[in-house]
């Protein structure tokens, strides 16, 4: 407790000035300042060298994906909409491509005490309708996320009690529980997307506002008709505050079905497409003007375990699974060797990573058999894995694991349910009902802030906790980490959380990170990290003048 208080005091003393941090060309630049303190990595700073870019500010980027079916930040239909929303609305903060929290519409923050966060706003910013961006606007937007009847993102602001506009450029967030880090993370996500209160109030209805003419303070303005899960166009907005981040004349987004993506980027009709499957990469080898970028994504494939079901209630059985599955072999097949296997949730460089965990659970059939014997299953056992009947990739993943588990004497039968039924089967919304899942291959999405990853998955009330059981000691660690003010403490505590989850193997363990694959014409720049189909960041992308190839 003393340690925690010391950390908070130390943090409060340092008014975190993060204005002016500017990363690579795809991230917003600030004005002036050069130092940054982030919540991403202990002691992390962001470089300030910006490459000289010969960008065509009138060029229109043709992007082969448009999965948004709502442009209302409080109405989450799928996680995908945020790709389009971020073009129209800026957030208060944002995470850069290395997972570090950076300023955007906010310039500074200060944790006054464990329950009060003060945020300073950027001055001179206007919404696209001319309305000034100020503290009242922030209060309006956050209040709507918390109280609007249609809002389904209230749960993400679980820690927030109220918002006060202190003055034109200062906002105070009063928290119910000490969770400054998770709150900042949310201000970089959906709840932090800012739209014009004046324009919203003037519209016939919020539905009308977000469907026809949403007004934000973003780099781009919507143009023409927005058609959900079909097409959307944006054009550069002259009044945008950040004049140094590379900008396009506009972006035309069209939803292209997965199977047509390779042909789309090979044709002259598209400049940038997200590629869905590793197997599609081979189809791009003959396209000389197309660049393919592959990086690990935040989407993980996992071996899910329900530790409330026998025989997985015995930690030795769970550990036997971890030793008995050859993650490298599974990863090689599933990703065609594009990425490596994973045993811990967070990758190196991210909060939540613990170098000591890298060597945990090597593939070891003898060890797995020994653990099963110690658990009372010398001849193995049989269990059912559940999977959606049309989820081909998950079916393949389960079949690979099925074959591997046979080597340690464990028979994994596969039961199919309708794909649309998988989530309700895995995580019944009625708290009194048990999950229909015992174990099997599944997936998970990482969040930059580990609180939002661990809390729903490992705490009893979590909505993606398959057994509704709780890992002893984790709540305390997460509470301390959420309240921690300095990066070093957070890093240490979340590493501790990672260790707890992997030692116990409640909820299973990761297998690999799904590769994010982007294919783009060689004249497209600003692509620092390949991203998935959703979410993706189009901000900072550019096309060179005369469409000359970008020098790598």
């Amino acid at each position: 407790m003393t340690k925690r208080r010391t950390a908070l005091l130390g943090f409060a003393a340092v008014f975190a000035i993060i204005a002016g941090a500017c990363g690579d060309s795809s991230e917003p630049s600030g004005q002036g300042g050069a130092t940054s303190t982030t919540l991403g990595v202990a002691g992390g700073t962001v470089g300030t060298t910006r490459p000289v870019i010969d960008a065509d500010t009138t060029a229109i980027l043709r992007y082969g994906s448009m999965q948004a079916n709502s442009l209302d930040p409080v109405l989450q239909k799928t996680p995908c909409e945020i790709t389009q929303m971020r073009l129209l609305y800026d957030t208060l903060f944002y995470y850069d491509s290395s997972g570090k929290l950076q300023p955007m519409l906010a310039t500074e923050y200060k944790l006054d005490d464990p329950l009060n966060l003060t945020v300073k706003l950027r001055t001179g910013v206007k919404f696209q309708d001319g309305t000034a961006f100020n503290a009242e606007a922030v209060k309006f937007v956050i209040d709507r996320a918390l109280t609007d009847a249609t809002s389904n993102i209230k749960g993400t602001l679980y820690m927030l009690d109220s918002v006060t506009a202190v003055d034109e450029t200062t906002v105070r967030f009063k928290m119910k529980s000490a969770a400054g880090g998770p709150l900042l993370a949310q201000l970089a996500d959906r709840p932090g997307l800012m739209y014009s209160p004046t324009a919203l109030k003037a519209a016939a209805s919020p539905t009308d506002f977000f469907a026809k003419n949403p007004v934000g303070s973003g780099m781009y303005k919507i143009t023409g008709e927005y058609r959900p899960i079909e097409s959307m166009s944006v054009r550069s907005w002259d009044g945008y505050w950040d004049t140094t981040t590379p900008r396009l004349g506009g972006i035309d987004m069209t939803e292209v079905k997965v199977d047509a993506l390779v042909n789309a980027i090979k044709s002259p009709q598209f400049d940038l497409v997200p590629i869905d499957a590793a197997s599609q990469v081979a189809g791009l080898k003959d396209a000389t003007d197309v660049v393919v970028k592959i990086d690990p994504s935040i989407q993980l494939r996992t071996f899910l375990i329900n530790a409330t079901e026998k025989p997985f209630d015995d930690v030795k059985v769970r550990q036997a699974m971890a030793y008995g599955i050859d993650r490298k072999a599974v990863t090689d097949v599933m990703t065609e060797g594009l990425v490596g296997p994973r045993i811990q949730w967070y990758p190196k460089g991210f909060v939540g990573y613990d170098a000591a965990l890298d060597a945990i659970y090597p593939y070891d059939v003898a060890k797995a058999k020994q653990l099963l014997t110690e658990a009372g299953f010398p001849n193995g056992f049989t269990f059912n894995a559940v999977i959606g009947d049309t989820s081909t990739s998950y079916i393949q993943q389960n079949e690979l694991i099925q074959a591997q588990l046979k080597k340690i004497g464990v028979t994994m039968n596969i039961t199919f349910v309708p794909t649309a039924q998988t989530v309700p089967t895995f995580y019944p919304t009625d708290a009194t009902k048990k999950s229909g899942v015992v174990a099997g291959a599944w997936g998970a999405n990482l969040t930059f802030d580990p609180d939002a990853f661990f809390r729903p998955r490992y705490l009893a009330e979590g909505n993606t906790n398959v057994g509704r059981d709780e890992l002893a000691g984790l709540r305390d660690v997460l509470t301390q980490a959420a309240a921690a003010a300095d990066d070093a403490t957070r890093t240490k505590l979340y590493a501790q959380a990672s260790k707890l989850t992997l030692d116990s193997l409640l909820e299973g363990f990761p297998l690999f990170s799904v590769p994010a694959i982007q294919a783009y014409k060689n004249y497209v720049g600003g692509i620092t990290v390949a991203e998935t189909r959703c979410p993706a960041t189009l901000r900072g992308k550019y096309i060179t003048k005369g469409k000359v190839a970008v020098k790598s």
Partner: protein
Amino acid sequence: MGQLILRRFLQAIPLIFLVSVAAFSLTWLLPGDPAYAIAGIEATPEEAAAVRARLNLDDPAYERYGRWLGNAVQGDFGKSVLTDRPVAAELKRRLPITASIALGAFIMAVIIGALIGVLQGAFAGRIPDKVLLFFVSLGLSTPQFWIATLLITYFGVKWQLFPVLGYVSFADSPAQWLKFAFLPMLTLAIFTWSEVARQLRTGLVGVLDQDYVRAARARGISNTRIIGRHALKNAALPTITIIGVRLGFLLAGSVIVESIFGIHGLGDYALTAIQGRDVPIIQAVVVISAGVVLTVGVLVDIAYAFLNPKVRVR
């Protein structure tokens, strides 16, 4: 003739009613909870309950069906669960897209299929017939997605003669419409023209062997005239049935073709709705598609009656 048309349309009404019941039943037949589809999978039970109350999802089925049918006959199919937009407006926008491609494919298939069929019939058993038979068999046995892939690879990507994705409406630019719609239409048409050609060839071979044709030949009437004036009308009857059935298949084929060619028509709308469990859209598409297929059936009956007077008196 007027009575026949009226009778056929009246016969279609109970069928449409049954289809509407089946479409409405999708609410229960499809897995998952629509309340969670709307509120989001991470919604709390309270949020899902609020959605149920807002949309009257807890009302008795017959009440909901009555409301839904009452609105549907007035052209109101409700709002999309996923996008909150009126389904009818989307159908109005997308139906012409699918219809224009299906109709274009249909015309292409009938013209080319008829030409091939007549040539095969006229040269039955000879080299032109055998060569054309090879291509007809190829057209019948090649799956649509494979045809589409080949067309895109060569005509779209390698030679860049046609765009590989997208659509421009006929009203905006007939030339652009043809440019964008040509490959999708060709994909849809190949199977149908092969079917038409095969059917017409078989019909013609049979008819050309009949006594009245032999008599016409004996009178010195040219082969072209015999086929054009006498044989084709009789040989076409079974082909018309095939054409009617194929028009329904062209609509069904639009799901695949629109998906591959990035066309946002009715097929794409249906596919996206099925993937997202958007029941109001699926219901509307089922009813509209059934209506189109039944209308085509009635039109085929009328065409039959026109070509074969015996049908009119039944």
